[in-house]
C-alpha cells in the first residue's frame, strides 16, 4: 500500500469502516512508516478536536436582523402583485378621500455611533422611531418616519377588511423612496367627511401602520362584532369620530360586544382584549401598539 493510498483511508480507519483486509494492510503500512504513523496520529487528534468545538453564541440582535430581512422578503413577494403608482397619481383621484402632498423630508441625522443611529427632527420636536408614526399637531396630520434601511414607504387608502394588510383592494395613493437614516415627514391632508382608513407600510417590514379616520358622520355600533381586528378598530373610529393609529403585524380575529353607549376606551379595551395590543389616548388621536 502506498502512502497516498493509506492517507485516503485515514478517515475510514478512524471510523472503523475498513474491511478486515484493508485494515490489516493499512496498519502494516503504518508500522513500516513512522512518519506516516505520526501523520495519522495528528490526523486523529484533529478529527477528535473537531468534534469538541465549543458552540458559538449568536449575537443579541440576530432575531431582529432575521425578522427584518424576512419582513422584506414577504413584502417583496406581496408587492409583486401590487401595481406601482406614483405620487402624482393621487391627485387624479377625483373622489379620493384623502389627498397627500409631500413637502419634503424634515430631519437630519444628529449623531451616529457604533451602536446605531439616533435622529432628531428639526423644528418639530420628538424622536423618530423605526416604524412610521402618525402625528397630530395643531389639527394637522402627518406621517413621520426614520428608516433604518433604504426602501420605500407606501400609502394606501380604504379597502375591505381582510386577512392581508393592507387589504388587497386598498387604493395606492402614495409612494416615497426612503433612505436609511434620513427622516421623512409627509403631511396628510384629509378632504373627506366619510370614515376611511389609511395604510402606511415601509418596504423593510411586514408591519403596517393603519390610521382609522372616524369621518364626520357617526356610525352607531350595532352590538356583537365578529371579524378582523382592523375591522373592529374601523368601527370604533367611525362610531366615536376618533382617529385611531395602530401599528399592526398580522391580522387577528376578534369577537367582541360593541354596544352604543360605550366610551371609546371601553370599546378599545374590549376589542383589544387578548390580542396583545394596548392603547393610549392622546387627545383626538388614539394609538394602538
Amino acid at each position: 500500500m502506498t502512502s497516498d493510498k493509506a492517507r485516503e483511508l485515514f478517515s475510514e480507519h478512524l471510523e472503523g469502516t475498513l474491511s478486515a483486509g484493508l485494515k490489516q494492510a493499512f496498519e502494516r503500512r503504518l508500522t513500516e512508516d513512522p512518519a506516516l504513523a505520526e501523520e495519522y496520529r495528528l490526523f486523529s487528534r484533529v478529527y477528535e478536536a473537531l468534534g469538541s468545538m465549543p458552540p458559538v453564541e449568536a449575537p443579541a440582535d440576530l432575531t431582529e436582523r432575521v425578522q427584518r430581512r424576512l419582513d422584506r422578503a414577504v413584502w417583496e413577494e406581496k408587492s409583486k402583485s401590487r401595481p406601482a403608482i406614483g405620487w402624482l397619481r393621487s391627485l387624479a383621484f377625483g373622489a379620493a378621500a384623502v389627498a397627500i402632498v409631500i413637502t419634503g423630508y424634515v430631519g437630519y441625522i444628529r449623531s451616529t455611533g457604533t451602536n446605531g443611529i439616533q435622529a432628531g427632527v428639526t423644528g418639530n420636536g420628538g424622536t423618530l422611531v423605526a416604524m412610521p408614526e402618525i402625528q397630530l399637531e395643531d389639527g394637522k396630520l402627518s406621517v413621520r418616519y426614520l428608516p433604518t434601511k433604504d426602501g420605500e414607504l407606501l400609502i394606501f387608502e380604504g379597502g375591505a377588511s381582510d386577512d392581508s394588510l393592507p387589504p388587497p383592494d386598498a387604493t395606492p395613493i402614495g409612494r416615497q423612496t426612503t433612505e436609511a437614516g434620513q427622516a421623512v415627514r409627509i403631511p396628510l391632508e384629509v378632504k373627506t367627511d366619510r370614515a376611511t382608513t389609511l395604510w402606511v407600510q415601509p418596504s423593510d417590514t411586514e408591519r403596517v401602520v393603519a390610521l382609522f379616520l372616524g369621518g364626520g358622520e357617526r356610525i352607531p355600533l350595532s352590538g356583537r362584532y365578529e371579524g378582523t381586528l382592523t375591522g373592529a378598530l374601523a368601527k370604533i373610529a367611525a362610531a366615536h369620530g376618533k382617529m385611531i393609529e395602530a401599528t399592526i403585524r398580522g391580522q387577528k380575529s376578534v369577537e367582541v360586544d360593541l354596544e352604543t353607549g360605550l366610551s371609546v376606551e371601553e370599546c378599545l379595551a374590549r376589542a383589544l382584549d387578548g390580542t396583545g395590543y394596548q392603547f393610549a389616548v392622546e387627545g383626538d388621536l388614539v394609538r394602538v401598539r
Partner: protein
Amino acid sequence: MTERHVDDGALVEKALKGDRDALDDLVYRYQARTYQFAYRLCGDEDQAADLTAEAFARVYANLARFRRESRFSTWLFRIVTNAFLDQQKKDKVRQKQSLDEVLSTEEGELSLQVASDSASPHESAEQTLQAEAINAAIQRLPEHYRAMIVLFHVEMLSYEEIGEALDMPVGTVKSRLNRARLALREILEPVVELFQA
C-alpha cells in the same frame, strides 16, 4: 428526531399557506443553529448574522420547493451553504482573518497569539487554543470542504445527509471529507504541539 421532522413539515405547510407565525416558529427553532453553521463557514460574526437572515429569506422564497422527504434542517443547511458560496463569489475577497492572528509566521518561526484567561485551568486554555486554531484552519479550507467539515463534525450530519445537503454522492462526500481533514492536518502542522495528547 422523527417527531421534530414531522413538526417541521407541518410548519412548512402552514407557512406555505401564508401563516407568518408558522414561518416565525421555524426561524425561532433554527436561527441559532443556522447562525452557528454560518459562523463556522465565514468566520465573521456580522457576516454570519447576514447569512442567517439571507438564508431565512431564501427559505421563505423557496418554501414551495421543499421536499417533505428530506429533513428541513438538511434543506436549510443547503440554503445557507449556497448563500455563503454566492456571497463569496460576489465578494471575490476571501476571508483573510483568522489563522494569521493565531499563527503568525516570522522567519519560519511560529508564534501563538491567542489571548487566554490566566484564571482558566490549563486544560481549558489549551482547549480554547485548539478550538481557535481549528476555527482559523477551517477558514483556510476551500468553501466546499469547509461546509462538509462543519456539517459533519459540528452539526453531526451523516454522510448521507451531507450528500443530500450538498447534492453529491455519498462516496464523493466521504472522499472529500477525508481530503478536507488531511488539508486541516496540514494547515495545523505548525501548531502540532496543541494536539499532542
